[in-house]
């Protein structure tokens, strides 16, 4: 918890004014992210999981300087990066890159692959002419794409190739952090593995730090070193990947892990399902935001929001498992 991170967030809040948001009365403010602390260590792959509407994409956008956000601390390599996108120094923009879910939306349909991968160098004024093309080619090689695709257009590529082009375009700037928001959700299963393996290699070979946002817990468990679980704008549990999946402490994490479909029909498990659905972010419940759905809810849970605190004895190779739950923190045996 105390180690110096490459990217450090304290008390991040992101809000949306309700004008134009359906079903939320005008004048109210919705906090999609409401007090989040998060640290990315250099060279780490951190998974950010949670269900739709929990605020994970909003959090990622705030890191990019997008949206209406405020934070006590937002630091990258020790430097304050709270400024919005249009006021950030160009070099900072280069060092943190972003990969979105759908590569077709992210690519220009009328430009060749080579042009699009070279363009960031032009925008940042980092290389020109032959040098620029050479660096774009090198980036394409880094994502295992051959020279034959340089002259192609996005519609001529497969989904896996497109997403690798998007990643090459981010890599050409030699970033230190890659924020990937559902990077494989739009891809077929047989080619998701290309992108997942590539992300792992980029970390292993160049020490790239990756924030991997996904609703696919199986992939998160496979790829990430650490995971943070979000529920309704807050982090409810965080910790190293295997211990957390083996022994989730927060009742919500337990429900998420239990809901992962089995890899084999012989491993079907009849489980108690989480009841209810996430409330709308416009009117979060008081106290612990999970309490209306929680099987362990007590009086304190209805009024006192639990803080995200380390679990005593749950430290694994220096990485600490932490939970925001009054009941789990008291050390009572939890049903698994």
């Amino acid at each position, binding site marked *: 918890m105390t180690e110096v991170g490459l990217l450090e967030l304290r008390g991040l809040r992101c809000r949306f004014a309700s004008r134009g948001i*359906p*079903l939320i009365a005008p004048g109210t403010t919705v906090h999609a992210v409401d007090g989040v602390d998060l640290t990315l260590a250099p060279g780490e792959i951190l998974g950010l999981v949670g*269900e*739709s509407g929990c605020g994970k994409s909003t959090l990622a956008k705030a890191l990019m300087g997008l949206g209406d956000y405020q934070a006590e601390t937002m630091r990258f390599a020790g430097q304050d990066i709270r400024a919005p996108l249009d006021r950030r120094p160009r070099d900072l923009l280069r060092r943190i890159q972003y990969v979105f879910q759908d590569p077709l939306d992210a690519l220009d349909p009328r430009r060749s692959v080579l042009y699009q991968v070279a363009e960031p160098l032009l925008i940042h004024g980092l290389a020109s002419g032959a040098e620029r093309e050479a660096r774009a080619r090198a980036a394409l090689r880094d994502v295992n794409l051959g020279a034959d695709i340089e002259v192609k257009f996005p519609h001529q590529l*497969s989904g*896996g190739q497109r997403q690798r082009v998007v990643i090459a375009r981010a890599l050409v700037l030699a970033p230190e952090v890659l924020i990937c928001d559902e990077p494989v959700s739009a891809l*077929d*299963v*047989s*080619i*998701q*593995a*290309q992108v*997942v*393996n590539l992300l*792992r290699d980029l970390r292993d070979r160049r020490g790239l730090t990756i924030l991997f946002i996904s*609703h696919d*817990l*199986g*992939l998160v*468990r*496979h790829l990430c070193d650490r995971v943070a679980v979000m529920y309704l704008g807050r982090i409810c549990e965080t910790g190293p990947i295997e211990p957390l999946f083996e022994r989730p402490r927060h009742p919500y994490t337990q*429900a*998420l892990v*239990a*809901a*992962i*479909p*089995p*890899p*084999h*029909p*012989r*491993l*079907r498990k009849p*489980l108690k*399902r*989480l009841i209810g*659905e*996430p409330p709308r972010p416009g009117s979060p419940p008081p106290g612990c935001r999970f309490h209306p759905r929680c099987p362990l809810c007590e009086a304190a849970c209805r009024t006192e929001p639990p803080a995200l605190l380390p679990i005593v004895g749950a430290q694994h190779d220096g990485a600490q498992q932490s939970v925001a739950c009054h009941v789990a923190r008291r050390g009572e045996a939890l049903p698994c």
Partner: protein
Amino acid sequence: MPLLDIQDLRVSFDTAAGPAQAVRGVDLTLARGEILGVVGESGSGKSALFLAVLGLAGARARVSGQAFFDGADLIDLSDRALSRLRGRRLSMVFQDPASSLNPVRSIGHQLKEAIRLNAGGLSHGERPTPEALLAEVGLSDPQRQLRAYPHELSGGQNQRAMIAMMLAGNPDLLIADEPTTALDVTVQAQILDLLQDISRARGMSVVLISHDLGVVAQICDRIAVMYGGMIVESGPVEQVFDAPAHPYMRGLMAARPNGAGRLQPIGGTVPSPFDSAPGCAFAPRCARRSARCSREVPPAVGGQRWWRCFHPALDAADAKPLEEAARL
């Protein structure tokens, strides 16, 4: 006699670029009360196959072959006769409930409409009430849900309401096309439980179309794996997962996290529906292919459990041990 017996079904769509062959000869049976998982990637023909069975493939579709439902060939039936079956004996649920529901009518209105259309011939005692249907799909507080409009409900609640409408006619067969793909993982688990419970309670057959092997592993009795418009492997779900015979099914399983090492992507890309090369559609991506594979379409081999492959992987030895998968 199986409830549904599909024989050599083919579907192609007329397009400006020529005929797109979505389904290239499918044979498939479904028993009463059975839950069949149909797995395939985008473009494999899994949705087109069942849209054609229901007569919903559209004006540009050319459909040939047979699909016997309780003895009657659905492909041969008039539109009128088919529309009398749809909703009453055969129903379909789609991926995104929000685009299937009418946004300006209450759930109660739409549910009553489904009851009137599909259970209108039943006597009052036999006709289901909206409240009973909503209770069956696990929507708490039916009175409130009946007055609600789709935008006031969550994705999971809307999908439950859709399923309730599909149950109004007490169908023998429910076709669910990616019913949980747009939903969160905890809600997905609820909907899968629901489909299984309804199937068991009513003796209703379910076809669950999905790209997700885990979803199929969770509730299906039998699996059919589609690739390039054909079923390449089928059988009882445990047997197929224990020792997948077709290299494509093996590839799909190795492409997902299974507790053992690096993921194995399948090289190459899915075949184009405009492609009319002879032979096995998977051959260009297959490590086990021989010259024969690009000349002839492999015939179906086996009985209850069958595959279309000249070089099936029949040794269970290199299938992933269950203990490794159990770790996940």
